[in-house]
């Protein structure tokens, strides 16, 4: 490889000096400081391993259930223990495995696929990871103390409000809410990653399909999780403070929970499934040795599924006695979603037809996935037909169906993906022999376990029963399922062994071992911490196949960012549509801050579970303080120079603000999620209006008009002044800026107080009726957001006075203004609903 061209490093320092500096800058910390790493390769790996552990834990729970159900009337597990176990199996699989594993793998792989050095917010990833770890261990640990939730993963009240006094339900609500917040954090990170951190030239029509799926799935998380968080808030408020949201004797309704839960719960199925399709979309073209057939169709399928999946939630409620017209509407959408699902599978089949297929273990698992998922999809269409669902609902038929979809659609591609991507993580390859053994054990074991369940269900066996009587025809089928479960488990053991067995003596995998076309396979074996030696210009969807000498030129550092002169970690920010370079983004290096603030945040939820309010509040203060330190020290730092040469003669700014910057996008996306949670609460208000003849009830005074309007006007004034302050800062009118923003903060406090005074002054009692409770909740939500708004205003004042914010470097106030746009909407809507709506009805 010693060619003269090697000295052609385009500009700057000699190649080996550049490499040394890059290595130094991106080096993973050693010793105990290893845990301060925030780079996507470390965090992604921890995330993957942790969610894998939760998968194994939930799998063992499943085996316990199968032992109990092997024979009728068995007493292996008590009813109470069984109910805890099935609740935990579902909850852990969904919340601690299926969603996190997607985020884990994406954090690990997405930057590689995008030729980026890291994700835009490494510390946010680390924060999300530690939140996930703490929350997950807390939730799983409850099982060891016989205190686990036992309300099913769907937690229907009133069983989970009035009939389960222990802390199990609180652990579920608070522990998992905590994790949901972490999931949303990861979603923000990934959306910005796909939209803004692509390599130059990777236009929107050239993104690897994985990127499209991530974009869709992260967007779905953003709109699906907040309704559940809203529901969690309602349910926990009822459990902790007796606010009767779901208590029919005081104006509540258990069905509201079901709506909020399933608005989350059905998109969730696709949130879990689409990332695995994304893996298939990466694996199939590699082994078909041809680019994907129907790229646009796959994008259509991803986006279409993302949208349609939000129109299915009531099909989990087909038996709640809703009118036929409602059942019909949701049945129609449930069938429509099968169309895009089918399209993407046919695109994969067409790609295999068009290519010259090379056999491999990953491809075997793709086949397993197709066979099982198509089966599950077809039974899914069956249960989407409302009349059939009236029989199949809540039976083992559905248990069979959902496992075909989730194991076939999610787990098998994941195992295929594990065999495929393993070299990118460890630089070693998994064993093809063990892979084939695992394939057969898993495929056969899976079908023996779950195929009979369809039949068991139609013979009348309901779900979630800890035992069943003899003589119903269930015995043989259940015994077969149990035997199959152990075969299936042995298959997972083989995979596990293959992953963890020592591979020290084996040679490193060759570079690009599968001869794939996508960018992540640039990785050198053994792996280098810098991710990519220089950030290339991309001209094709399969650059490694189509762009001649690409690898060589990248290795030689002939593209962007081949050096780290300042010893700072840098990656490129590009434009959304055409990936034009826009900024040289400096990303932070190792720090313990995310771990500490995640621990504090966890404290709020964990102490809250036990109703230890003082430690919870202290913990909350700790979380706010650490997050403020993190923001203060790590974000929007004024750089030592305005622009830098990133290579190839390109000068890029180091500091940008507004819609081109990643921070602006993160705020925007976060607030979309936040607004969705708020809308869900407003939905609650109107839901009560729909089901009650008199709402607001005549017995309630309501919050009046005067105080809400006063509060609203004050806060909207504050909003206007915040915008004015942003302009004044830009005009560099320092005094006016301080005065305006400080006044805005005061007005906000006054407005929040007035809003709070509204239900207070009329004596609304949140424990009396669901109306009083929902009004208080809307007010509380708005006041809390106003307080955050004040904190932000004060932060901007401090930033400017400390010289971290100037007329030119105004990212802080720009993002705060963006927050305030959403806050103003929240205020207007709250006032309109609590003060305005009663006047209309």
């Amino acid at each position: 490889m010693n060619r003269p061209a090697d000295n052609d490093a385009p500009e700057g320092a000699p190649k080996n000096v550049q490499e040394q500096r890059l290595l130094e800058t991106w080096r993973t910390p050693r010793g105990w400081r290893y845990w301060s790493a925030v780079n996507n390769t470390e965090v992604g790996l921890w995330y993957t391993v942790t969610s894998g552990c939760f998968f194994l834990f939930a799998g063992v729970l499943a085996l316990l259930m199968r032992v109990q159900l092997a024979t009728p009337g068995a007493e292996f597990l008590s009813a109470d223990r069984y109910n805890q176990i099935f609740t935990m199996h579902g909850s852990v699989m969904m919340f601690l495995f299926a969603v996190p594993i997607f985020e884990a793998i994406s954090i690990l792989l997405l930057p590689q696929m995008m030729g980026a050095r890291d994700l835009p917010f490494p510390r946010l990833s680390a924060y999300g990871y530690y939140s996930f770890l703490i929350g997950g261990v807390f939730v799983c640990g409850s099982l060891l103390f016989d205190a686990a939730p036992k309300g099913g993963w769907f937690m229907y009240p009133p069983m989970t409000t009035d009939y389960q006094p222990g802390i199990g339900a609180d652990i579920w609500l608070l522990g998992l809410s905590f994790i949901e917040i972490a999931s949303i954090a990861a979603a923000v990170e990934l959306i910005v990653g796909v939209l803004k951190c692509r390599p130059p030239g990777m236009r929107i029509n050239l993104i690897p399909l994985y990127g499209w799926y991530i974009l869709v799935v992260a967007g779905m998380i953003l709109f699906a999780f907040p309704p559940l968080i809203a529901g969690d808030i309602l349910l926990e408020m009822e459990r902790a403070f007796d606010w009767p949201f779901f208590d029919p004797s005081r104006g509540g309704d258990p069905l509201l929970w079901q709506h909020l839960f399933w608005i989350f719960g059905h998109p969730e199925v696709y949130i879990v499934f689409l990332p695995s399709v994304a893996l298939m979309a990466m694996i199939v073209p590699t082994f078909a040795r041809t680019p994907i057939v129907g790229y646009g169709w796959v994008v259509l399928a991803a986006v279409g599924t993302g949208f349609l999946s939000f129109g299915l939630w009531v099909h989990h409620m087909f038996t709640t006695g809703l009118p036929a017209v409602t059942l019909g509407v949701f049945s129609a959408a449930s069938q429509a979603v099968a169309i895009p699902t089918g399209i993407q599978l046919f695109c994969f089949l067409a790609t295999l037809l068009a290519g010259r297929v090379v056999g491999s273990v990953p491809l075997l698992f793709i086949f397993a996935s197709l066979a099982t998922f198509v089966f599950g999809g077809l039974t899914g269409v069956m249960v989407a037909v409302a009349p059939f669902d009236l029989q199949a609902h809540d039976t083992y038929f559905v248990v069979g169906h959902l496992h075909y979809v989730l194991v076939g659609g999610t787990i098998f591609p994941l195992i295929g993906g594990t065999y495929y991507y393993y070299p990118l993580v460890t630089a070693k390859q998994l064993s093809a022999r063990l892979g084939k053994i695992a394939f057969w054990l898993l495929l056969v074991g899976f079908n023996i376990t779950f195929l009979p369940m369809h039949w068991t269900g139609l013979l009348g066996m309901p779900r979630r029963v800890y035992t069943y009587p003899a003589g119903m025809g269930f015995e043989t089928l259940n015994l077969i399922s149990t035997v199959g479960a152990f075969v299936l488990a042995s298959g997972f053991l083989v995979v596990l062994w293959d992953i963890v067995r020592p591979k020290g003596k084996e040679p490193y995998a060759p570079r690009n071992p599968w001869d794939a076309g996508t960018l992540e396979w640039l990785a050198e074996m053994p792996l280098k911490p810098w991710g990519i030696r220089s950030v290339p210009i991309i001209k094709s969807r399969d650059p490694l196949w189509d762009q001649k000498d690409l690898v060589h030129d990248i290795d030689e550092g002939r593209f962007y960012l081949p050096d780290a002169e300042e010893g700072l970690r840098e990656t490129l920010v590009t434009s959304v549509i055409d990936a034009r370079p826009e900024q040289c983004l400096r990303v932070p290096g190792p720090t313990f801050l995310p771990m500490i603030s995640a621990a504090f945040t966890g404290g709020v939820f964990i102490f809250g579970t036990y109703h230890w309010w003082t430690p919870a509040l202290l913990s909350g203060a700790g979380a706010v303080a650490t997050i403020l330190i993190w923001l203060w020290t790590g974000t929007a730092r004024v750089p030592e120079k305005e622009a830098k040469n990133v290579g190839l003669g390109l000068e890029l700014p180091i500091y940008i603000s507004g819609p081109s910057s990643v921070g602006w996008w993160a705020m925007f996306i976060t607030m979309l999620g936040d607004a969705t949670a708020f809308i869900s609460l407003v939905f609650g208000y109107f839901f009560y209006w729909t089901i009650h003849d008199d709402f607001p009830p005549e017995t309630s005074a309501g919050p009046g008009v005067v105080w809400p309007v006063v509060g609203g006007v004050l806060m909207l004034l504050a909003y206007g002044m915040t915008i004015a302050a942003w302009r004044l800062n830009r005009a560099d009118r320092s005094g006016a800026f301080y005065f305006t923003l400080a006044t805005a903060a005061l007005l906000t406090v006054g407005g929040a107080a007035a809003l709070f005074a509204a239900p207070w002054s009329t004596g609304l009692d949140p424990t009396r009726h669901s109306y009083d409770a929902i009004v208080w909740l809307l007010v509380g939500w708005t006041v809390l957001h106003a307080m955050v708004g004040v904190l932000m205003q004060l932060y901007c004042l401090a930033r400017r006075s400390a010289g971290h914010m100037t007329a030119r470097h105004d990212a802080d106030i720009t993002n705060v203004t963006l927050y305030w746009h959403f806050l103003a909407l929240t205020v207007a809507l709250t006032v309109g609903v609590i003060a305005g709506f009663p006047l209309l009805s």
Partner: protein
Amino acid sequence: MIMHAVNQSLQPILDRPRRATFSWSRRSIARWALLAVTVCTGCQGPQSALSPAGEGAEQIAALFWAMAIGAGMIWLVVIGLAAYALRIVPQPHDKRSSRRWVIGGGVIVPTLLLSILLMFGLAILPALVRPAPEGSLHVEVVGVRWWWRFIYPSPDGGSFELANEVRLPVGEPVQFDLRSADVIHGFWIPSLGGKVDMIPGRQTRLTLWPTAVGTYRGVCAEYCGASHAKMAFDVVVMPREEFDAWLRQQAQDAIDPSEPDARRGSEVFLKSGCGGCHAVRGTAADGSIGPDLTHFGSRHSLAAGSLENSPDNLRRWITEPQSIKPMAVMPGYHTLSDADLASLIAYLQGLE
């Protein structure tokens, strides 16, 4: 108006006259069902949705078979194509013909099939959720953790309460008015038709139309806590005359026991406080927390379908109910002497 016209034009195709609620192509259903039963020997069971004995169940079973066969064929085609593409295809096909698979197999065929299926499902849906015609039998059902309260109209115009066993006349629609006393339950008699949840604060309903005399089993379908698995009931479908006789008999108060042992048992019953929770109409026992026991002896099973109604099982239930039904409210009466227990059992079993 346009829609009305469309309805009119669809009428002959869908063959669903509005007068008779359940007569949607009964003949074709019967044919399907016959075929299904002859094909399916493993479908039998007291709780099976695939050995239908009611109109709803028959329609849905036929729908199931039709969809299952269709789905099976689709699965074979898709997997056949996958196997062909993965293993058998010798030469790469050209892009254009591959793309045809996307458009044909991925778009056109599924859209057509799903449209047909949707129309089919929508056509039979309204009849399945419609209330029973005027004048039909109404049975009120209350789900209680973990048993069932059945309230029948008595022949004299009032109503009376039974528990854990429901009897119906064959060939007539019956409407169940469903409520819950505590958490959400699901009322389901698979052999007769679909299920509907029982939701606190709401009243839901389910109309069934039994078509065959026999004994079936209903269960709670919605997870409702510790003993969800032990919340079942017996369903007896009988000819109209027998049903009328049964209803008259059940509406009456309990007959005082004549046997001395059973008479002693009635005293044990009252002395032990059983009447605080259970009612035996015509006696001082008027509790309403637990199941009505006025005609307990006539029931097939005890503890909401958990055990066969036999003296030995009853003894187990009275002395250690939690071992049979975890978290059951009923306390265990293991302090009763053997003699008292025997008398109590004789009394209860005699309440026919």
